[in-house]
């Protein structure tokens, strides 16, 4: 019958129109006095009493709180987590990158947990302006020194600023993603829940060789 189909379709539209929106406000959302008080760690009355300006702002929908949406733990974020103490400077990652955007310069000397005395990393620059976050470099790293990061809010105004230099990698907040790192999933580590992981011994799949082994190996092989 003509018209029945239209009614059916309208029912669908109506049902969806009555649902709460599924979109998410990002990067921040407006809150009222109650939300603002929660953000400031006060009761609504306390907020009005102690911070009347903030309360007035909130009442006029001018107060916003940042929105944090946790990603999944395998999320390949646009930064890298790199543990210098694990890195031997083998450059597998640089070779495996489809775009060749990792630049590594090493010099003899330095120390790492895998091989003992080895190479010092002078330059380890990742040009994430050209990176596609495929994660192949992380897959290639035999020593679990390089991990995908989980941060994604790293936009910059200039292209040059997109290159992550080695110093920044050294100091960066270390929140490794569990992409290609089953050891994180085994011990249920979630970068978005658990925060940073600074201990470089805990991020690898490899046993730490004892000091004697390292000494012996190094002495024998030298």
């Amino acid at each position, binding site marked *: 019958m*003509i*018209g*029945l*189909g*239209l009614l*059916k*379709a309208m*029912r*669908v*539209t109506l*049902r*969806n129109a009555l649902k709460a929106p*599924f979109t998410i406000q990002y990067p921040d959302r407006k809150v009222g006095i109650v939300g603002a008080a929660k953000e400031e760690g006060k009761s609504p009355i306390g907020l009005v009493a102690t911070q009347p300006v903030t309360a007035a702002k909130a009442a006029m929908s001018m107060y916003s709180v940042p929105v944090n949406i946790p*990603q*999944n*733990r*395998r*999320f*390949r974020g646009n930064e890298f987590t790199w543990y210098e103490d694990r890195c031997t400077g083998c450059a597998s990652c640089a070779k*495996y990158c*489809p775009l060749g955007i990792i630049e590594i310069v090493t010099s003899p000397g330095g120390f790492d947990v895998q091989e003992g005395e080895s190479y010092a990393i002078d330059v380890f620059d990742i040009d994430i302006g050209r990176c*596609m*976050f*495929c*994660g*192949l470099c992380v*897959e*290639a790293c035999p020593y679990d020194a390089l991990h*995908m990061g989980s941060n994604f809010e790293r936009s910059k105004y200039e292209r040059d600023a997109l290159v992550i230099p080695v110093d920044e990698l050294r100091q960066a907040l270390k929140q490794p*993603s569990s*992409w*290609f790192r*089953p050891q994180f*999933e085994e011990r249920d580590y979630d970068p978005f829940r658990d925060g940073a992981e600074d201990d470089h011994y805990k991020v690898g799949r490899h046993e730490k060789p004892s000091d004697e082994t390292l000494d012996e190996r190094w002495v024998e092989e030298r």
Partner: protein
Amino acid sequence: MTTQVRTEPITVNLGPQHPSTHGVFRMRVTFDGEEIIDVEPIFGYLHRGSEKLAEERTYVQVVTLTDRMDYVGSMLNNQAYMLAVEKLAGVEPAPRGVWLRMIASELQRIASHLVAVGFLIQDLGAWGTPLIYTMREREKILDLFEMLCGARITNSYLRPGGVFMDAPEEFWPAMNEVLDELPPRIDDLDDLLTDNDIIFSRTKGVSVLTPEQMLDASITGPMLRAAGVDWDLRHRDPYDYYDQVTFERPLHTAGDNFARYWVRVQEMRESIKIIRQCEKLIEPGSVRPEHDDVPWLLRPPVGDAYAAIEHSKGELGFYLVSDGSISPYRCHVRAPSLINLTLLRDMLVGELLADMFVSFGSVDINMGEVDR
């Protein structure tokens, strides 16, 4: 008595940057009044040379390029490429990896069809709202992909012989939840469209293609099945473990815009069935072959291989030639989007201006794949 009004034909350039073209596509259309009398499709604006780039990358690195060909069907692209590599190098895939990639690619098929159906309604003039209904469902599937491989669009999930990592344990309940929620949403789409008089009058009998025409132009996928030709590679030439699952192949006989939309909606239901069966059949085990069998720097023997899958848009094939080195000597893609476009002129000539983009959208092309 009707009076004849003489009109001058007018030629209009549509695109490449036009809000309603599906990507950077340009058509030079000649109209006589509202009627289309000639169409000249011009493409190549999104050419990135993926096939050439593949020649200087190793076999695993090329996966990242396949993601970017049809970016609403990345998992399916990964799958087609991996089948070609496995055939070329004689790799025996790991069973759990194969099941996982079947699940991933069926999820991707649903996501891709959702996009196609959503944009069909959008082109009909229902701006925004129904598209958002489909995007909402697609978003849930993309979340599942993020769980699997950390990315939503550029997945790079598959590796020669399987997948790079097993699905995390939280994936299975999440996937079941999505699959439970989907059928009512697909019913909604059916309610919204299938009995709708407005949709009927706009899409039925528009841009009809006969099976003969399409077979001559080697058109595949939902377009062909919408004209009643039972051709689905998953059934005709089962790759992976598609011979172990049962599914229907929805067919329509009209071959018009409505039939193409209808086939896609029904196929989503079949994909859900396939995923449910895969979930029952999957067994614990390793998800990719040992490193010694499939090293990272794969060096397939000299030779060539062609492998094709039933992509959400048609037959997607990869033809690889190896000269024994670490990267393909030649990589050719049989892109369904490009080949399905070949009948565009036959579809559009004689139709009205308002139906032009509906017909164009019903081909379900993706410019990333047309131009590569």
